[in-house]
């Protein structure tokens, strides 16, 4: 009897020791792994569980162009308005001629679920990432500009001139098509796009459309919103309120 007691006492001690050491190891390693992730960025591929989107409330859209300026700054665009300058986002003013009601809204790549630019691309440079962001792989793009013709939103630009001093995270160059990337470099780093961050009235809400509990999903469920050119059936990732 006493033997078994001793045995059980020893195994209890061992168990306790193992528990403590495992706990200590976890405490020691966890912050390191966290630090590694933070320092080295995402090591996993993006998945279709997420679909990034934006909800733009035009009622709050003030008479400013801070979203445009923030986009230009983040992505290293010149901000020029000549026909050959790249514009990834622009403020569009609408006026109902009958009633006289006018409103302004930011217009950019709508990150369609069925993007026409991807359909027409002859080389496969235009593509949609698993998380719904529509991008151009500039290593494959041959600059044919077919996607620019196909886009109903005129969201894409062609780079006509050689560029210098590009941002390290936003490579851009002459001879290829480019457009809003939903600030993919920021999104991958866990931040929100520059335009959404810059809006003084929080008119641009960025979030995961596939997560039913996200702020954007809740708002879209409870409030009216619409797609631009919904008749095309592109299932845009950007939705507007008040138009």
């Amino acid at each position: 009897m006493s033997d078994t007691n001793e045995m059980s006492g020893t195994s209890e001690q061992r168990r306790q020791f193992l528990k403590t050491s495992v706990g200590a190891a976890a405490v020691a390693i966890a912050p390191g792994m966290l630090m590694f992730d933070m320092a080295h960025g995402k090591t996993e591929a993006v998945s279709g569980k997420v679909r990034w989107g934006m909800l733009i409330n035009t009622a709050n859209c003030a008479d400013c162009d801070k979203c445009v300026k923030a986009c230009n700054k983040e992505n290293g665009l010149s901000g020029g308005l000549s026909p050959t300058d790249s514009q990834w986002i622009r403020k569009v003013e609408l006026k109902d001629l009958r009633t006289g009601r006018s409103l302004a809204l930011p217009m950019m790549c709508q990150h369609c679920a069925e993007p026409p630019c991807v359909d027409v691309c002859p080389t496969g440079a235009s593509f949609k990432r698993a998380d719904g962001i529509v991008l151009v792989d500039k290593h494959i793009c041959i600059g044919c500009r077919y996607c620019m013709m196909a886009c109903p939103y005129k969201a894409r630009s062609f780079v006509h001139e050689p560029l210098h001093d590009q941002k390290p995270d936003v490579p851009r160059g002459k001879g290829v098509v480019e457009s809003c990337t939903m600030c993919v470099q920021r999104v991958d780093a866990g931040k929100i796009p520059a335009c959404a961050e810059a809006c003084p009235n929080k008119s641009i809400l960025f979030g995961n459309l596939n997560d039913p509990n996200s702020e954007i999903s809740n708002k879209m469920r409870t409030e009216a919103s619409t797609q631009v050119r919904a008749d095309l059936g592109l299932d845009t990732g950007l939705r507007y309120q008040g138009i």
Partner: protein
Amino acid sequence: MNLLCDQSDGAASYSTRLPHNGNHAGYVVLRARSILAYLQGMFRSSCRRALHFDLFVTVAVRIAIVLVALLCLSNIASAAESNGSVAGSYGMPKLDIGKGGHCVAPPEWMRINHMKVLFKQRDETVHQGIRGGKYSLKNCVECHASLSDNSVIGRPDSFCEGCHRYEAVKIDCFECHSSKRSVALVQEVPK
């Protein structure tokens, strides 16, 4: 003195005098003798002097030249060791490797395979959003941009351009990608 005049007149005086005396062979012999005598005199006097002073100077100069050559050689060797660049017998380029330090893979391997790993990681990042892999172009630039002009291209000894010029392979990367180190970005990452 006579000889000196002949020298200064040169070929022109020689040809003008020939038709007058007509004794071509005799003139040449005379001339050759005088040159020989002059050279002998020179030799004797220089020997006399050299025995005392010139010899000393010559030896000293030779020793100095050897010393300077040795110094230069040792300097080149130590410089090559300290920055780890390649200065082999094939005249490979000497590169400014910037901050340097431990590369993500052995330099010999990287010399052969860097483009393959860069292309692979490029496709993963663009299409799948996998970021922060060790073979990123940004990482290359971050360590290897020159400490003087902050760039991996633009000079014959720049980290990327040095080798690519030597191999005559055009680099397209930096028509779109930044060739400059971004200090601000390094500070932003740990946040």
